[in-house]
Every structure is written in structure tokens, then in C-alpha cells.
């Protein structure tokens, strides 16, 4: 058993932490306030090869794997969760499906540019009537004259506006339930494809979330991703990885909440002493620190398992569930420790709460995570 990061992983952590704290944290509040997508930060992240971390060298990656990537997502999200979800969605659910299930040609064409950060990727699964029940997809794809004709729409899609490539799910065999779903690679400039105005959200305001529309959208036959009818199986596997990255994102927000709360508690004086001397405040901080440490163990371990090529369905769900609930609790407690100041936009903790809440919803709600875990337990 080895609980320490390797030397190169420590260096990656330090590089990303320094970058995130120096370049991103100072502008995070403004990005949130202006709901401004951080193009310049994304470009710098690409220059640091952050998008390349999870992928092998033959497809333009650095070959570092999931654990260092997860550490990077945590550090970026600690500074700005909007940038964190942009990053996590790009890699874990945008690029990963192609990396995992693409043909050699598809991988060469798309994974390289995504790993180098030349384009962003997105994943379009959720539909107005198919959220938790992702098998209820209504979007259809019909093969005619070696072309797929696709109709339907997707909602709540991260990176929708800025993505150069989007992986979507659609029904190719109606009436066959989840066995009738297939995945497709949709290049940004495909005719018949359009994107809505961005949503006005509670949090993660600097991230790009919008709807996708497919109106008689035509795709070449070989834009089918992997095998026909295997789309649902693929997305379960993709979400196994995606949930680890949401866990990391949540961990970053939780850590940021704790950092802010501890610093504030040491400085703020009431009744002639720092409020950190009151046991009621100390216990909150002790609980926060403990849950964060537990969440980190769970998230890192799930990532490590993935790097070992082992199944992570159960561990991914546990890590995501625990880390996201930890983030929401930590952000709430941070606001409590800040008192009235915590309720004000002038301080970052209210943003942490707004951002944290999505962690309990995206890539499977907490209820769905518990369902997945229970199923894994044999219920």
C-alpha cells in the first residue's frame, strides 16, 4: 500500500496548484459575476499540457493517466469550479468516449486535437425527457444511403457552445430499449446542428451550458462511435470515469471552502478572541477537514483503480457521492463560519456553495449514485 503521490505526480500537483492559484483564483469571482467563459485560461491550460494528461502518447497525450489528471481537476476547481467543469467535461465525458471506443482513424482524428487543447469536446446525453433515465433517449438516428439522419435535441450540455466536437447518443433501433442506443461523433460545423443561447444558472456561471438541436442533421456513416447498439453500454463506462472527475471537482470546491473558512476563523475576532478558539467553530473545521481527507482518499483510489485497468463502477459512484455531499456541506459550513459576511457576494464562499450544488446533480444525482452502489452490492 502506498498513499503518496509519485515524484512526477507531486510536480504535476505543484505546477497546476501554482498556476491555478496565481492565474485563475484571482479572476474567478469576476468570471462568475460576468458569466464569462475563460478562453485565455483554457489556452494556458493547453500550453501546460493539462488536457493531454489522461491520454497515451500515441494519441497526443502525455501518458500520465487518470490519477494525475484527477489531481489537476481538483487544483483547477479549487481556484475556479467553472473552469474545473469545463476541463472535466472536455476530458472525461467529451474526449474519453472517442479514446475508449473510437476506431484507430477516429482516435487519430479527434483525440490528438482534444489532448493538445486545440479544440474542446462535449458529451450530449441528457434530454428534456431523459435525465436520470438516460435510456429514455428520444433523439433518433436513421441510416440512409450511407448517411445518418439525426433528429432530436439535448439539454444541459457542458461546453456546448465552444466545443469543436460533441459525442451524442441517439436511438438507432427503436423499441429495443437501451440496446437500441448508439453513439455518434458530431463535428461542430455539421449542417443541421445548432446550439441554443447559454442557460442562466445558479452556479458554475463561467462554464458553458446550452442545448443542442439536430434538425435533419446528416453525418457520414463512419461517424458512428464503436458498434451500433452499444451506446448505452459505452456511456455507463464513460460515466464510471466521469464520476471520478466530478468527485475531484467537488473535492476542489470542498478544499477551497475549508481554506477560506480556516483562514477567516483565525482572523475574525469576537468576544476578544479569534473565533477559531471557540469549540463550536473548531468542531466544524475538524469535521470539514476529516470529510475532505476521506473524500480525497476515495477519489484518488478510484482514479488509481482506473489506472490499474480495474473496474471502478462502485468506487466511482462512492467517490462522487461522498465528495459531492462533502463539498455542499463544506461550503455551507464555510458560510456559517463567515457569518453575515459569508452571505455576501464580496466573499467567495457563497460562490462555492452555488458551484458545489451541481456536484450532487450532474453525471447522476446523489439518488442515482446510491442506486448504482446498491446494485453493485447485489440489491
Amino acid at each position, binding site marked *: 500500500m502506498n498513499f503518496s503521490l509519485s515524484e512526477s505526480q507531486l*510536480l504535476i500537483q505543484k505546477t497546476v496548484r501554482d498556476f491555478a492559484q496565481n492565474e485563475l483564483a484571482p479572476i474567478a469571482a469576476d468570471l462568475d459575476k460576468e458569466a464569462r467563459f475563460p478562453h485565455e485560461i483554457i489556452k494556458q491550460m493547453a500550453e501546460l499540457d493539462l488536457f493531454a494528461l489522461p491520454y497515451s502518447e500515441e494519441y497526443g497525450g502525455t501518458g500520465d493517466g487518470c490519477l494525475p489528471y484527477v489531481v489537476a481537476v481538483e487544483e483547477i476547481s479549487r481556484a475556479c469550479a467553472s473552469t474545473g467543469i469545463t476541463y472535466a467535461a472536455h476530458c472525461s465525458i467529451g474526449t474519453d468516449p472517442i479514446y475508449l471506443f473510437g476506431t484507430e482513424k477516429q482516435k487519430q482524428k479527434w483525440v490528438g486535437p482534444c489532448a493538445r487543447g486545440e479544440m474542446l469536446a462535449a458529451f450530449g446525453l441528457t434530454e428534456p425527457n431523459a435525465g436520470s433515465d438516460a435510456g429514455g433517449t428520444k433523439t433518433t438516428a436513421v441510416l440512409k444511403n450511407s448517411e445518418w439522419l439525426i433528429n432530436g435535441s439535448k439539454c444541459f450540455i457542458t461546453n456546448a457552445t465552444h466545443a469543436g466536437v460533441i459525442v451524442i447518443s441517439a436511438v438507432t433501433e427503436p423499441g429495443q430499449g437501451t440496446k437500441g442506443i448508439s453513439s455518434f461523433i458530431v463535428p461542430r460545423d455539421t449542417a443541421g446542428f445548432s446550439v441554443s443561447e447559454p442557460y442562466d444558472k445558479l452556479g458554475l456561471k463561467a462554464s458553458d451550458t446550452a442545448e443542442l438541436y439536430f434538425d435533419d442533421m446528416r453525418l457520414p456513416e463512419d461517424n458512428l462511435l464503436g458498434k451500433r447498439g452499444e451506446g448505452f453500454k459505452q456511456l455507463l463506462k464513460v460515466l464510471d470515469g466521469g464520476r471520478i472527475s466530478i468527485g475531484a471537482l467537488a473535492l476542489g470546491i470542498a478544499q477551497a471552502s475549508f481554506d477560506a473558512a480556516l483562514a477567516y476563523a483565525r482572523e475574525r475576532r469576537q468576544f476578544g478572541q479569534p473565533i477559531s478558539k471557540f469549540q463550536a467553530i473548531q468542531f466544524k473545521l475538524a469535521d470539514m477537514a476529516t470529510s475532505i481527507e476521506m473524500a480525497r482518499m476515495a477519489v484518488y483510489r478510484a482514479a488509481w483503480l482506473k489506472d490499474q485497468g480495474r473496474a471502478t463502477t462502485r468506487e466511482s459512484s462512492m467517490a462522487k457521492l461522498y465528495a459531492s455531499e462533502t463539498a455542499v456541506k463544506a461550503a455551507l459550513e464555510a458560510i456559517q463560519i463567515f457569518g453575515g459576511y459569508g452571505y455576501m457576494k464580496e466573499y467567495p464562499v457563497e460562490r462555492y456553495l452555488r458551484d458545489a450544488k451541481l456536484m450532487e446533480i450532474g453525471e447522476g444525482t446523489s439518488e442515482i449514485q446510491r442506486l448504482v452502489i446498491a446494485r453493485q452490492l447485489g440489491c
Partner: protein
Amino acid sequence: MKSIVCIKYVPDTSEAEVKVNPDGKTVDDSRFSFDINDADNYAVEESVLIKEDKGGEVDVLSIGPKQSEVMIRMAMAKGCDRAVRVEDDRIADHDPLMVAKVLAGAIKDKEFDLILTGCWADDYGHMSTGVALAEYLGVNHASMVKKVEVLDGKVRAHRELEGGLMEVVELELPAVLTIQTGINEPRYAPIRGIRQAQKKELNVVSLDDLGIDPAEVGSEASQVVLENLYIPEVESAAEFIEGEPDEKADKLASILVKGGLV
């Protein structure tokens, strides 16, 4: 250009509380996180910028513990080529002259044009290691350097003086420059650089390996005896100025005038 950059692993004392151990001569560093000395981070960047501009190589040299290898690898991830780490508990490490003597011993058989050090270390803050190193090697030096121009066989160094004044000096190479913070913008190591750094050479050596007589750099040789470390008592003598804003302003002004502060 062949450059050598000397870097030190120092504790970050801004976060954890500083406590002196019962021996009165060492600090409890168990709660500190360590990293590269701030000025040395700029020295690393400057050495890599010079290499990128003029070609050549950069060697890293550091005296410090095993844990400091993370710092050394980071310098290599940013573009330095190879490194030597000196580890030996017989060095009188509280005395910058002894440290400089060891650095000089590690450098003397190497070919070099330029040596960059930080202008001061954040922990002991002697501001003398780089200068002493130049003396031991018998080469030119300039301290507190805020800008470097490499010329043919020479280097032009812009030195930061008091009051925002700059002094420009030209030195024949080889030379030692002690680098001031703010001279450049240190880069973040790209992930690919971090991977390459894992394959770069890092040699760990002792005084014996360097052919340095421990008696010449140990506490017997040092003219400096570390007597005692202590944390100064905080004295607070604050005077609260009471009254209406106008009165307060008058009182404050008269205090400043009396104290010769304005």
C-alpha cells in the same frame, strides 16, 4: 553558454508558526512546507531564458536533503539539463562562507560561463552566498541583478540599488550573478517537461565525492558560531487617538511632526 544555477530548498514560514527547538539553535520545521527559495526560482527562469536565447546548457546545483529533489526536478522540468545535489551533514550550514566553499568545490572542475544564484535566501537571509562563491572561484560578480544581457564574452548586468536606482555594469565571463526577484516571470513547468525531467541526470554527492576536506567546511573551520535563536517579544505600544475627525487629524499630524516623520 554554460550556466550553473544554485538553488536552495527553504521552508515557507508564512503559514505555519515558527517555533525554536529546546536546543535553542534549530527551528522546529515539522510543520513547514518546503520549496525553492523565491529568488532562486527567478534565477532558474533566467538561466533557462538565456539558454533558449543563446543555446547551451544549464546545470542545477543544490546542497540540501533528499526531499529537495522534487524542487530540483521542477527546475529540470522548466528546462535545466542536469543536476548535482550535495548532501553531507558535516557542512557548517549556518555559515554562508562554508556553504559557498562547498558550492565552489562542486563547481571548480566544471566548465562554465555564468553562475546564477538568488540574491538572498528566505530563511537565513545572509545575502552572501553568491558573492562568496564568486570569491572562492576567483571570478567576477554582480549582485541584486534585475536584468541580464549576454554579450560576446561579457555580460551586462543591471543592478538594483536603493531608492529605485539602477546601476549597469559589464563583467567579463565567467561570472557570478545574484538574481533579484521580479527579473522575469517564472514559467510553470509543462507536463511534458515534468516527464522529461524524470529522465534527466541527478547526481547525489558527498564531500568525499567532491574531494572536499570536511575539516575545511565544518564547524571547526567556520568563524561563525550559532549561539542562540529566539523569537523577539512583540511589544505593542499603540496610542488610540480619540475625538472628532478634525481633532483626530490635528493630533495625528502633531505626532507625525514631533516624531520627525513628515
